[in-house]
């Protein structure tokens, strides 16, 4: 883990997650300031807009704009939800934020609640990280006892109740409306939009959902000013971002860098390629983002616009690095299985299509591919995309389309020769159990 940047700065150590440590690092000063100065809601939202903070969960939607969608004069409860349901293969940043700096998320949510007039909030935490959920509950107890959360925060007339909700194993709950269904105690199946959560959200009330890292960035933006945050990155891509680097690098882990940092520099921070091997491909934004060939990636900078121009998405900032020992058919087979397994089953094109994609990629990988299989894959993806309630169908299709587009020759070799272009023993040697000496 890198201790640079904003959110991860000063978080090297066992106790950095404690309230006392967070306050010593300047924590809760932004919340104290807006309450003492009675800062207007508009001023906070304007600051967010100036910062060009874009949603860190994957979609990159401008946060200030999202906040401005919440109705002002709604009678009754308005809700906030924090999306810590991090289960997109390659993504493991929110876990570290909650592990090392949970109070930045709590402060960010309290400020958001103040700016939008929300009265209650939930942090939805990924099922598999139960120990992190327990830690967040402890951090919440600390924040409540210190008067940063609860009734009449810091003696003001602003009240905001915040709780943690623990998931139990469903990738789809990272979709914002599925997450709301899940908090309501139901199957996590996405809702039709519109109505959008800002008008009909949790329990039918106005709700704003943001990612963990997005909320964690808010106190830093108020402290340094929107302009200061924006200037850390590049135009239209404000601030710092956590990148989860996994795969064939020497030091997998989270690295917080300013947006616009060259990919080559990020790769260097992650210790470079394992065993000095050659970079083959990178998935730059989590498993749903289209894969890019290594040489294309080496010319990119890590920000929304550069990665989008190269034909992929910055997504959640999950960078999966693959070297020359990787069989691209096998890699896609694993991802396609994931989407097949995690489709919630609500929409036919996704429920049936993800299974179809997996079975075709599986048979190609196992030497049973047919000459027209690549056309079939493209046809199935075209019939899933845009025909489902949520984005999981698109997320399952984009890897297939991009793997076939950039590495089509490897798929064709598989189909023709009934074996892999990369010899099995080379593949095995390349993906042995690897634990970085720094762990």
């Amino acid at each position, binding site marked *: 883990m890198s201790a640079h940047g904003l959110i991860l700065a000063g978080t090297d150590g066992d106790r950095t997650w404690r309230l006392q440590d967070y306050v010593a690092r300047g924590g809760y000063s932004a919340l104290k300031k807006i309450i003492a100065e009675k800062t207007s809601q508009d001023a906070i939202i304007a600051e967010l807009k100036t910062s060009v903070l874009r949603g860190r969960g994957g979609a990159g939607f401008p946060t200030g704009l999202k906040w401005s969608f919440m109705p002002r004069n709604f009678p009754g*409860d308005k809700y906030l939800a924090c999306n810590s349901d*991090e*289960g*997109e*293969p*390659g*993504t*493991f940043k*929110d*876990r570290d934020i909650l592990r090392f700096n949970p109070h930045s998320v709590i402060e960010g949510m309290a400020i958001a609640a103040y700016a939008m007039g929300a009265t*209650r909030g*939930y942090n939805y935490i*990924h*099922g*598999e*990280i*139960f*120990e992190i959920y327990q830690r967040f509950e402890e951090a919440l107890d600390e924040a409540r006892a210190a008067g940063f959360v609860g009734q009449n925060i810091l003696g003001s007339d602003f009240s905001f109740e915040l*709780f943690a*909700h*623990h*998931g*139990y*194993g*469903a*990738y789809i709950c990272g979709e914002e409306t599925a997450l709301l269904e*899940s*908090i*309501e*105690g*139901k*199957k*996590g199946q996405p809702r039709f939009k519109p109505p959008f959560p800002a008008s009909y959200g949790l*329990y039918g009330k106005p709700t704003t959902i943001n990612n963990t890292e997005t909320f964690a960035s808010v106190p830093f933006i108020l402290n340094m000013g929107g302009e200061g945050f924006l200037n850390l990155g590049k135009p239209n891509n404000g601030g710092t971002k956590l990148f*989860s*680097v*996994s*795969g*064939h690098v020497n030091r*997998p*882990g*989270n690295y917080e860098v300013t947006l616009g940092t060259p990919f080559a520099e990020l790769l260097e921070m992650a210790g470079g390629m394992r065993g000095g091997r050659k970079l083959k491909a990178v998935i730059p934004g989590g*498993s749903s983002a289209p894969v890019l060939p290594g040489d294309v990636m080496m010319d990119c900078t890590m920000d929304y616009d550069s990665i989008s121009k190269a034909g992929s998405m910055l997504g959640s900032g*999950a960078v*999966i*690095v*693959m070297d020359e020992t*990787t069989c691209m058919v096998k*890699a896609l087979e*694993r*991802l396609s299985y*994931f989407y097949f*397994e995690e489709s*919630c089953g609500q929409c036919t094109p996704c429920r049936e299509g993800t299974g179809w994609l997996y079975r075709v990629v599986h048979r190609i990988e196992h030497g049973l591919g047919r000459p027209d299989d690549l056309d079939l894959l493209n046809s199935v993806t075209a019939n899933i995309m845009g025909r489902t309630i949520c984005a999981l169908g698109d997320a399952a299709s984009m890897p297939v389309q991009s793997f076939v587009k950039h590495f089509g020759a490897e798929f064709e070799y598989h189909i023709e020769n009934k074996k892999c272009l990369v010899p099995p023993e080379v593949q095995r040697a390349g*993906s*042995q*159990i*690897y*634990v970085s000496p720094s*762990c």
Partner: protein
Amino acid sequence: MLSQESLQQIDREIAKYPADQKQSAVMAALRIAQVEKGWLSRETIEYVARYLEMPAIAAYEVASFYNMYDLEPVGRHKITVCTNLPCALSGGVHAADYVRQKLGIDFNETTPDGRFTLKEGECMGACGDAPVLLVNNHHMCSWMTTDKIDQLLADLDKK
């Protein structure tokens, strides 16, 4: 049907939600029930549903939708290994093979002595820690070399 301690824990969960939204606590209540019982039988799910004043079928829908609930008995220790792509690139598949060989069972099987059940997991959100094993749903083990797997299995065997 559930112990006083479990019910107290469930009550604490219910208190997190608006008074007319008890159903919101169903995920936590099923988790707490599973920890006490080892797995979720139909009777346990129905009991939880009654406690939360919701239809049994709605609780069953939740129990069958989220994959960390066990609707069949499992061994004393359930081990889940992530083999998704990022983990696989750092040895997730090798780690899974090693555990399989060591326990002499495949995925979704339980050792004859009832001590271990092995599952193949999807993304646990900890790809930087690969290979990753999850023990009994709640304890994550990171950077699992074969030595560390040996140690873990030996420690669990004593429990």
